């Protein structure tokens, strides 16, 4: 696909910021420099991709749905009811379109969709990447994220969670990359934000990804690597050493963003161009 080539070259440029520089950059950071020390590896072998090129329902070989409003709004007091209806999730014109609608449905005031690869695709380590045009507005909460594949037997937060991208709709220029694990979940999660200086996440597509290997998770947006999290950064056991599966969702309301208000425009849509996983 058209983006693939140019993006690969961007990643190769990033890789130039190689391990030789790490010590130098670390010493800079001790001197008060705010640049993050980055350790980057080459992860360019494609192992899974969904380019969303087939019209209709998302590929059932890869994607499941979460349905309903979960326990306590999926643990976050979220307001939407997730469905598998095409009005909430469909593939059209090369995009997965997830739509948050304002409608009364099974006791909820909003509907939306949450897709996940649980039981269909999971992987330990690699590069997990997506290209998305995000929705906007107070109380809108889209995310591209991962959970430990053993979550049914090893409940959250011990299973681990990697939020590759989360956005608060009321902050249209800022996304967050976060890890949750035992001892560092919810409000104590390890997180960093990335803000566009002359652009927004809801007006054009942006690439969101992580490069994940033993003892590190690197977070990037487009061609900017903006954070690295290592075992030294987490205040508990490092649990990112087992397979994780992928989730894409568009939540409405909840503790993280607050409720929509009169100015929030509905419907809101999240356009996903692709999901790719490399090793």
């Amino acid at each position, binding site marked *: 696909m058209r983006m693939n080539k140019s993006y690969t070259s961007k990643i190769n440029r990033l890789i130039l910021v190689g391990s030789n520089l790490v010590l130098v950059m670390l010493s800079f950071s001790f001197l008060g420099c705010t640049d993050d020390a980055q350790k980057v590896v080459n992860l360019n072998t494609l192992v899974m991709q969904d380019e969303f090129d087939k019209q209709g329902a998302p590929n059932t070989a890869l994607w499941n749905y979460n349905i309903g409003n979960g326990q306590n709004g999926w643990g976050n007091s979220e307001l939407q009811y997730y469905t598998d209806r095409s009005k909430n999730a469909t593939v059209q014109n090369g995009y997965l379109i997830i739509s948050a609608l304002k409608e009364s449905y099974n006791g909820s005031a909003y509907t939306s969709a949450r897709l996940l690869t649980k039981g269909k695709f999971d992987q330990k380590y690699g590069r997990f990447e997506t290209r998305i045009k995000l929705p906007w*507005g*107070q109380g809108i909460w889209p995310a591209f994220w991962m959970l430990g594949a053993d979550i049914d037997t090893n409940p959250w937060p011990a299973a681990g969670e990697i939020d590759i991208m989360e956005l608060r*709709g009321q902050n*249209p220029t800022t996304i967050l990359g976060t890890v949750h694990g035992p001892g560092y979940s919810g409000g104590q999660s390890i997180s960093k934000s990335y803000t*566009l200086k*002359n652009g*927004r996440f*809801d007006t054009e597509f942006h690439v969101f990804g992580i490069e994940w290997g033993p003892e590190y998770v690197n977070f990037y947006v487009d061609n900017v690597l903006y954070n690295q999290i290592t075992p030294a950064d987490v205040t508990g056991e490092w649990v990112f050493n087992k397979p994780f599966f992928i989730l894409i969702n568009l939540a409405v309301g909840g503790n993280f963003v607050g409720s929509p208000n009169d*100015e929030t*425009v509905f419907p809101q849509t999240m356009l996903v161009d692709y999901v790719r996983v490399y090793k």
Partner: protein
Amino acid sequence: MKNMRTNNFTLAIFLGFMLAVLSDCQRNLSDDVEFAKYPNTPGVFIDGFVGGLQYFPFAGSKLNAFTVDTETRYAGTASMRIDVPNVGDASGAYAGAIFPDNGGRDLSDFDALTFWAKATQSGTINEIGFGNDFGENKHMVTLNNMRINTTWTKYIIPLPDPSQLSFEKGLFYYAEGPENGNGYTFWIDELKFEKLGTVAQPRPAILSGEDKTETSFIGVNTSIGGLTQTFNLASGQNLTVSVAPSYFTFTSSNVEVARVNEQGVVSVVGAGTAKITAILGGVKAKGSLTIQSLGQFTKAPTPPARNAADVISVFSNAYTNIPVDFYNGFFAPYQTTLGGADLTINGDNIIQYTQLNFVATEFKNPTVNASQMTHLHVDIQIREAIDPSDFITIQLGDFGTNGAFGGGDDKSGDYKILSAGLSSNQWISLDIPLASFTGLTNRSNLAQIFFISSDATSNNTPTISTILVDNMYFYK
């Protein structure tokens, strides 16, 4: 801020030149044609006037309200200082000025006018924006009621559609009056056009976003107001500015019924229904105006010529009218009636009331001495079918010697017209002896004329909803 001077010098010479060129060649412009570019200088006031910037205060404003301040500033060496006068200041009632660059600028690469501002106290600046050039004000943009306080804050005024701003003279303007009678000072600094890249999600609106329906006739002209553009900013704030009609492209769904010009003025030309909508920068505006034209309008019979001493006219194009306070008092909470003297059909002013239950025209400044008059004349047209239980009551109110409502000296009288005396869609000319208004024992301080379509006989349910009224006068 009603008294702003708008010197109507226009772009006529420039436009005339353009037309001459275009009509001469009769060909489409090729892609190779490059129009003359105006400078795309971003600065307006950084540490002084940038480019050919000029200062023109509004007539009636404090002419020296603006100065360059080198002591208080956000950045650099100087800021713009604006001293808002106290109420009663002989030098002017408010601070207001435009800052044009009459050479013109190309602003099409920018998306916002930005500046830093603070004030000696919290205040609300009435109007601040750009596009006011003492000419056509074709691209005027106004941020209304901008809150300001004592801390330097960055403000953003988005460009509604930058592609239309390749030649703009009016780079900045403001108008602010005293706060609670008191003057104060505010400062503006680093005033410039910027490409922020974060001004997004345009949501234009006409008629403040409402879908309105109006009954109308051939010959009626209506202006579409409530023109706004709303953007979402990087802060998450949704900011709405008032914008000039020229930014919009207006469309009528049926030009045989209604046409709309680039100023948003709708002209009704035929019978039927037409919906007026608009687009700004490729985005459909929220709100619409549906015209339901009833076709040709038949004027009410023209009243006969009378000596001035023989007539006291409240509402007629045939006579000189007395001062009227209002044609609809919107009396809360029971009144439902909408409308008033807002129809102009081929130059004739008509009152239209809709959702009538009761409504008053009031003229108490001064009250009217009709003690020498013998009749009330009024022309009424009922715009719906007449049911047997329908009626209209006309009530006259006299405020007594105190000239004010209440006080124990008020008198009023009713004259009720039952359905047998009514007909639909044609003028009913009434000449009612004032003696027939039972209970109106005094008419030397008349101040009100009511139209009422609901009373105890109808269980307080309105019987007639839409009426036109013309030629209300007392005569002898």
